[in-house]
């Protein structure tokens, strides 16, 4: 009992400390500091979250790709440090019509694409049409509520919707809001990724597959004085330890994600500083409850595994895991323990949700009550050092309450296939997180959710979530999300364990590098100070 209290106290202290850090970090970011930047120089950024895929926003789906796009492709909207949506290429926040089916967005004047052509409503319309109709467009599903986009004069566009859709602005604050040069679209068509041209402080120069992407300062940008480097090179590092070494050696000046095991040595290095941001995503376990025949093969029916058939067993499963020890042992103290799909770093975080705490004794009795003898769970884990470490930790915790966990290490791509096919019991997987809570919840637990690997289907949750989509006031939306999440936490199609905190390492010679809760390293307006 004592150990639990101490652990809880430690956890609270750690959480409080991190929150304080975040507050001070964001305060620092928003405070205006007179920094003298040197013009020129090359910044080399180490990316450790995988290699960017095609540099065409129509097709792009990688995290690292978004980091590169931050320098070469501005969007209609962007985030600020507190995850509020602010206009970037748009002139103001969108105006929604009274029937909620038309959204008008005013555009800024005097902006040029990185090939010199003008940015206007025609360009936005052409881009959106491409996103909606291009064969294989990934943005189409993000903009699925949009029927068409029309120009209203030279500097405004109207989005026509099938049904009310509040998350639209959030979508336009990511890749779906990136506007492409019409001239380049016509010139390259499907091969846009070979030489992408948008609006940005930097422009694409070249790329060596598997190694690096180089961008150079753009002479066309509307706020040229804010871009200081002559060149930025994004280098891909598959091994986080090698990336940390490179940062310490000075081969790279920024590292977008330091592995928890490398943080002590980077902290100790006087020439480096660490920027932290609590992300919008979560880490957790998806439990296959009703996915018997495959994703979206409705109706979902209970798959009959130990966890699927017994809500009490699922509760025991959650109670057996000490999130604070998980944080300490597996993640080296670099995550925020949590139990909801929305991260504390988001403005949508719901403080009033009560979590199921660590309680191994009650877990043991719940296991008895479940009536299942020798409960066994096959936990599918995508290969990766940290994931495997976490899986083994969970295995140990569950063994202590009488649940046997078999760790099934599966390569990432195959694990996604299996999750979709429903050929798994439990899946240790997270989600990188979206600005709008809809992006963290709907796809996973709505009956028609395209990421609902759990096969969870509950009418009342569907209703809450669709109301949340169409409601227009924040207050109303919060109310619906609260109800939905409360229900999900009861049924446990997913058990949420933590919210990752991204730590980026930066050389002290560089200033102006920021990281918002989307955990993307923002280097576009940074520069050398020495």
């Amino acid at each position, binding site marked *: 009992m004592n150990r639990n209290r101490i652990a809880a106290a430690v956890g609270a202290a750690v959480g409080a400390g991190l929150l304080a850090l975040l507050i001070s970090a964001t305060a620092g970011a928003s405070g205006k500091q007179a920094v003298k930047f040197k013009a020129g120089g090359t910044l080399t950024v180490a990316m450790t979250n995988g290699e960017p895929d095609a540099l*065409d926003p129509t097709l792009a789906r990688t995290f690292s790709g978004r980091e590169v796009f931050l320098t070469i492709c501005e969007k209609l909207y962007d985030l600020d440090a507190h995850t509020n949506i602010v206009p970037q290429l748009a002139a103001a926040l969108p105006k929604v019509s009274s029937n909620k089916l038309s959204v008008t967005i005013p555009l800024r004047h005097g902006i040029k694409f990185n090939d010199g052509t003008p940015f206007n409503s025609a360009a936005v319309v052409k881009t959106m049409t491409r996103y909606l109709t291009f064969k294989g467009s990934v943005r189409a599903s993000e903009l699925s509520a949009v029927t068409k986009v029309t120009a209203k004069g030279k500097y405004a566009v109207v989005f026509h919707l099938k049904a009310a859709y509040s998350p639209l602005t959030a979508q336009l604050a990511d890749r779906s809001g990136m506007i492409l040069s019409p001239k380049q679209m016509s010139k390259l068509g499907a091969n846009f990724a070979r030489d992408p041209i948008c609006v940005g402080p930097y422009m694409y120069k070249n790329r060596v597959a598997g190694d*690096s992407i180089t961008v150079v300062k753009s002479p066309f940008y509307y706020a040229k004085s804010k871009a200081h480097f002559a060149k930025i090179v994004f280098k891909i590092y598959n091994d986080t330890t090698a990336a940390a*070494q490179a940062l310490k050696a000075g081969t790279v000046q920024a590292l977008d994600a330091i592995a928890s095991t490398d943080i002590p040595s980077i902290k100790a290095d006087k020439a480096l500083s660490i920027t932290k941001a609590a992300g919008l995503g979560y880490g957790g376990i998806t439990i296959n409850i009703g996915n018997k025949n495959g994703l979206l093969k409705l109706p979902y029916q209970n798959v009959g595994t130990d966890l699927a058939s017994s809500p009490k067993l699922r509760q025991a499963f959650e109670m057996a895991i000490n999130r604070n020890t998980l944080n300490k042992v597996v993640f080296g103290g670099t995550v925020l323990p949590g139990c909801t799909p929305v991260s504390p770093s988001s403005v949508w975080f719901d403080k009033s949700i009560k979590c199921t705490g660590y309680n191994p004794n009650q877990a043991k009795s719940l296991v008895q009550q479940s009536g299942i003898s020798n409960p066994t769970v096959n936990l599918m884990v995508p290969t990766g050092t940290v994931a495997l470490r976490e899986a083994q930790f969970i295995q140990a915790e569950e063994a202590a309450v009488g649940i046997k966990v078999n760790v099934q290490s599966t390569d990432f791509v195959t694990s*996604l296939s299996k999750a979709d096919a429903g050929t798994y019991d439990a899946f240790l997987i997270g989600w990188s997180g979206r600005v709008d809570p809809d992006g963290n919840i709907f796809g996973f637990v709505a009956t028609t959710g395209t990421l609902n690997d759990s096969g969870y289907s509950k009418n009342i949750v569907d209703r809450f979530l669709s109301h949340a989509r169409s409601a227009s006031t924040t207050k109303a939306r919060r109310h619906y999300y609260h109800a939905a999440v409360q229900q999900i936490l009861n049924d446990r199609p997913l058990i949420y364990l933590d919210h990752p905190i991204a730590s980026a390492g930066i050389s002290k010679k560089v200033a102006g590098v920021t990281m918002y809760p989307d955990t993307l390293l923002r280097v576009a307006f940074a520069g050398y100070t020495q």
Partner: protein
Amino acid sequence: MLVVASIVVFGGVRAIPGNPAIALGAENRDPAVIAAVKAKYLLDKPLPVQYGHWIWLAVQGDLGVDQRQLSVGRTIASRLPISLELAALSMIVSVIVGIPTGVITAVRRGKPSDYAATGVALIGLSVPHFWLGLMAIIWFAVDLHWLPAGGYVTAHHPIANLKHLLLPAVVLGIGFAAVLMRQMRSSMLDSLGTDYVRTARAKGLSEWSVVCKHAFRNSLITVTTVLGLQLGALISGIVTIEVIFGIPGFGSLTIDAINQRDYTLIQGVVLVVACGYVIVNLLVDVVYSLLNPRIRTI
């Protein structure tokens, strides 16, 4: 043989579960995208049609376009020289270390230096090179800061380029040095004991010139033979070392391609490997028959 290899690769790659659409999908698995990927790879057409399509293009030098929309041919062309440089450097290291040691231990057979060198060689054979790489990184890069821990700099900056490749080349070269040494030793022992040599000695030629002449002739044969036998091991070694040291060469490209399920890239890569293998084996045979007309394998 190339044909068989290409068929095996083609079939093997298609057998990998988790189709490329899912790999491209990462988080959002969108049915429209999956359909587009299927169309691009002709995944709905029967296998022989897919295979024929690929071979037809490959023969024309077009290995297709990978998931990043970059030309596979160009990617391979840019990363292959890096691995070749690494391979060449490690071969140089192993020749410098292995050949003379092999000669000396053959000449001083039975003496303590022979046992010592043979012992070291055995250890060299037994050490897993990736472990040695990790240890080397710890000692030389982390603790002593003498050399970089990995990465690669193009040959435009020759000094930095060599600094980055020094550790990987040495680590890779040591294993082969050991093999070379043993081969060299045994072939020197064989030839030093032949009648031909006894006659030469009887004729009054100095021990040194006898040794040198045979050493030279034998070393060429030895290196060629070992290269031929160990090519597979060399390639495996390059792959591991590139992964550990983060060198963006051909080896790490292969691993990445497989992990990404980048069909086009995998096929292109393995085809190149198979071609390379054929070429090297051919060269080995040619050199062999040139050196020793009595051994004609062609």
